């Protein structure tokens, strides 16, 4: 066991997998000697650089992600550091439409085992916060992972690297260097598609990922004083989604709040809402509530940014609303 930040745990997972499997390599901009923006690849160059397995690329997102697809088709297991999720629009065709379709269209003959990692989210790094992961739910054949803490980040990154499909791995900048937590040093793979109850409760289910899990937990603490017992369900991966875990929880609590950092309109929270509205309607005792930023671009001034991003108060308010309904 070691105490590690989200960034350290993620890099540790990558390093361990690179040691385990010589087909794993990593590429992206400034990830070599420089260590990657925000230290996203710190130490990898020193250990694997000489083998040519840490590759600095030109600023050509579509093509280096596409090169990841092409290398994966040849049996390698590329990890591509996209730097920021904001650049998803520059690579979604290669990663998603093509990369996600190859296994199906080839009747199983092509596999595309690759991971694209990307930083995002409102945090100490002031910029590139856009959260467009929701698009990927509507692209067949790709998986989406969004850990909320260092230990999950490590276990999920290992699973992502070992997965035989294109996996998009979200690294929240508000969590990245936000403190150390215990992280196992063993293999500790966390299978994709297993949600985790971060706090058990009986009155209402709050479904969240990444930073919103932290905020939901903070909201839950406050709501305890109001006598409201909140269950916080961390999806961990959005595709595949642990639908059973969501349904089981909501069937028990009868109430659902979904918190998400993507703007509300068209965000991935909608998938959770729709699942429950279709499958657990009979058990619902109150309207479902979404907590998400308004449908505006992320504003710049820190005070506006605060207004933009849901915090524990917003989540708590939504919980109170569904409790009162």
């Amino acid at each position: 066991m070691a105490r590690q930040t989200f960034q350290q745990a993620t890099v540790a997972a990558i390093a361990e997998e690179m040691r385990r499997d010589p087909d794993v390599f990593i590429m992206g901009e400034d990830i070599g000697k420089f260590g990657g923006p925000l230290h996203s690849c710190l130490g990898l160059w020193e250990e694997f650089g000489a083998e040519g397995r840490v590759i600095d690329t030109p600023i050509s997102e579509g093509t280096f992600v596409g090169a990841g697809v092409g290398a994966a088709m040849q049996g390698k297991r590329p990890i591509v550091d996209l730097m920021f999720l904001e650049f998803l629009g520059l690579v979604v065709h290669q990663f998603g439409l093509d990369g996600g379709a190859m296994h199906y269209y080839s009747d199983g003959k092509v596999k595309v085992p690759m991971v694209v990692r990307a930083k995002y989210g409102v945090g100490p790094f002031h910029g590139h916060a856009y959260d467009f992961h929701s698009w990927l739910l509507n692209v067949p054949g790709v998986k989406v992972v969004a850990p909320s803490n260092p230990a999950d980040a490590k276990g999920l990154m290992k699973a992502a690297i070992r997965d035989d499909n294109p996996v998009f791995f979200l690294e929240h900048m508000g969590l990245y260097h936000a403190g150390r937590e215990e992280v196992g040093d063993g293999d500790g793979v966390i299978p994709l598609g297993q949600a985790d109850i971060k706090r058990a409760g009986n009155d209402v289910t709050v479904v969240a990922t990444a930073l919103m899990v932290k905020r939901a937990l903070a909201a839950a603490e406050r709501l305890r004083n109001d006598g409201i017992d909140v269950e916080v369900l961390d999806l961990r991966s959005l595709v595949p989604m642990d639908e059973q875990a969501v349904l089981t929880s909501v069937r028990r609590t009868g109430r659902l709040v979904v918190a998400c950092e993507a703007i509300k309109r068209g965000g991935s929270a909608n998938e959770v809402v729709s699942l429950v509205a279709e499958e657990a309607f009979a058990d619902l005792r109150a309207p479902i509530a979404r907590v998400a930023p308004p449908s505006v671009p992320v504003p710049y001034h820190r005070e506006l940014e605060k207004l933009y991003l849901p915090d524990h108060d917003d989540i708590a308010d939504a919980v109170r609303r569904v409790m009162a309904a």
Partner: protein
Amino acid sequence: MPRDNQTLLDLYRLMALTRALDGAIAEIDGHWHGLEGEEAVVAGAYHGLRPGDVVAPHYRGSLTAACGRGADLRKLLAGLLGKATSYNRGRYRSDVCGPPEFNLIGLYSGALGPPLAYATGAALAIKLDGRDDVALAVFGDGTSSRGDCHEAMNMASALCLPVVFVCQNNQIAISTPASDGVAPRSVADRAVGYGMPGHEIDGNDVLAVHDTVQMAIARARRGDGPSLIDAVTYRVAGHFVSDTVEDRPPEEIERWRARDPIALFRRYLVEQGVIDDGDLGEIDQAVSAEVAAAMAQAKADPDPGPDVLGLDRVFA
């Protein structure tokens, strides 16, 4: 460049097969993108590769690439019809996407350009694995305007990857002449900007194509990095079979028809004494018969059943 008679005849056969396929498919598929006039580029480029080499063909010529690598004609034609006997059981079209078991990279979506990145990635894998295989990325003159082309060439050069870029330059993209869509006269002019060798060649001369591609492949195998070849030919056909809009001067089309690459090569083979007219005719007939038989089989092949939809087979 030394070449034996077998190579010459194989090249001829691949051109003849391409033409025979073209005719047979045009009869059944109004949306077929014919390649009359461009056979020298595709046969020259796709003949003589090793199994470990990876090819991302231009969509127009994708079937020739598959044939050149040993794919089964009936299965390919079944793929055109979406039959259950095709390489992917009807899930996807074979005319723009070859069977990956032959190290072919296809258009998995319909977007032109991104496959250059996939080929570049294949070359990266080859380099990482210390193989001396190469990747061959073929694209149209129109496609050369996509940013993918620039990024792939630049990155292949920066990382010194074994890729050979070939422009199947038929001087038009749907209706847009290369002179309007591609600013310079020759796509090969771009090579200097990437610090790689650039070759502008006669794309109707199958030996020029074959020799230049093989030379660039040899360079890549040696670890000396990528090359760019601009094989200038002409789309005698329409954009696709039922494309009736034709704005090019008839004389221009006729001039190029007169430079038909198959006729040119026939003349060469006979003049060089490699083969006589009669034996060439036999090759033509054999190829046509092969295509006809494969087509008849493919047509008779079963349609895919609902199980092929495979809702749970998206993820590996």
